[in-house]
């Protein structure tokens, strides 16, 4: 009688423990690849966002355009304040998953990017005036980079100059490794580790073939 009671309990405990270990550490799952894209020292900014998304379904519904793109050209726009740098990228559209299928080239504007901090004025301390060029990365997420390929979820600004912005500001983009077309993580590792829910695209699709995400997108389109 005692054996009959304890066997299912022990089995349930083992299964529960294994599930907790797997979900907390992901140690039995393929480890995603982290890629450093920045060409300058990176510094995170921390923000407040009107809308953030928790999964692909939400961000897909919100976005005007979902596409695979390759960055062809790029400029940093410092404006009046170097810490408010924006990056304006011209990109080639490789494949459209939502939106006009005829698009060939578009503009994407992101917050962050390379800026010259030697222009910052705070005269009570004149040390290190030559910090120079750094890349500001919102929540540790760098802007897209020339020659690289990404799957992006975009919102139309309705302004031809600014083009599209990333849905969820830093959420709607994942780089595809050009050699095997698997998703990779470009977010700084420490920032990614503390906010995986924010970077759900990387959490769910990094290390996986892009067809996994494509399959999800085609289901959402139906």
């Amino acid at each position, binding site marked *: 009688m005692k054996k009959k009671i304890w066997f299912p309990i022990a089995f349930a405990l083992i299964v529960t423990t294994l599930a907790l270990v797997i979900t907390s550490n992901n140690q039995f799952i393929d480890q995603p690849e982290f890629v450093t894209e920045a060409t300058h020292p990176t510094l*995170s900014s921390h*923000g407040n966002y*009107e809308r953030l998304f928790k999964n692909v379904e939400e961000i897909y519904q919100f976005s005007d355009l979902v596409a695979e793109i390759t960055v062809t050209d790029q400029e940093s726009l410092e*404006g009046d304040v170097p810490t408010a740098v924006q990056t304006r990228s011209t990109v080639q559209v490789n494949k459209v998953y939502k939106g006009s299928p005829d698009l060939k080239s578009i503009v994407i504007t992101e*917050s962050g990017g390379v800026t010259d901090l030697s222009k910052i004025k705070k005269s009570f301390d*004149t040390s*290190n005036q030559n*910090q120079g060029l750094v890349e500001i990365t*919102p929540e540790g997420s760098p802007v897209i980079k020339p020659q690289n390929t990404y799957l992006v979820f975009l919102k139309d600004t309705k302004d031809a100059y600014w083009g599209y912005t990333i849905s969820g*500001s830093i959420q709607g983009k994942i780089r595809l490794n050009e050699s095997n077309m698997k998703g990779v993580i470009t977010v700084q590792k420490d920032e990614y580790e503390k906010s995986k829910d924010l970077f759900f695209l990387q959490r769910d699709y990094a290390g996986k073939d892009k067809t996994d995400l494509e399959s999800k997108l085609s289901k959402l389109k139906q």
Partner: protein
Amino acid sequence: MSNQYKSILSILMVGVFTLSFTLEASAYELIGHKLTQAPYNRYYWNDTVTTNLGGFNAKNNCDLAVSAWSSSPNTKIYLHKTTSQVESIMDFHSVFKADANELGWIVFFNGSTQIQPSVSDYSWVKMHINTNGNINWMQDPTSYKYVEANGKQQHVWAHEAGHGFGLDHVWAASWNANVLMTPTPSSYYNYGTKGPKDDEVAGVQAIYGKLY
């Protein structure tokens, strides 16, 4: 019910309770480092913040947000307004960004060097509100209780100031929790939160100590 079943049930209940407590325990998150000097009887500067952000006085809303922090009970936070940017430890700016989804953001400096706040302490911070942001626009105003632009601007300024004091986003908790440091203004929309709540007060007390 046999004693054996009762014992098993008790153990399971204790386990579930412990797990629940662990998941909910993190009421605030720290960014890693802090201001090199406690923000008590020190200065903030917002001379260039616009007084007309979509018809609303962003500078006044900034003052109200700082005042909310200065009024937080038993904390070493009290900031005076200054017209001298040099002596300020919190600089506020209003600037344009194309991404309307980004309402505000902050960067950290030690002297003239921008630093990573997870790595080292900082002597001052630079906060921004996006003049192109959806700062005067409410998500689905019919669904939320609080939909007033001045309140939302105060929330954004107070949130960024929270980062400036050393608080991080509360990622682990529900994004709809009534705390200032959720990454969206959901606590304003749902609860009218425009300043620090108990969790943020506990956070800055943990960083700088209590006043008394």
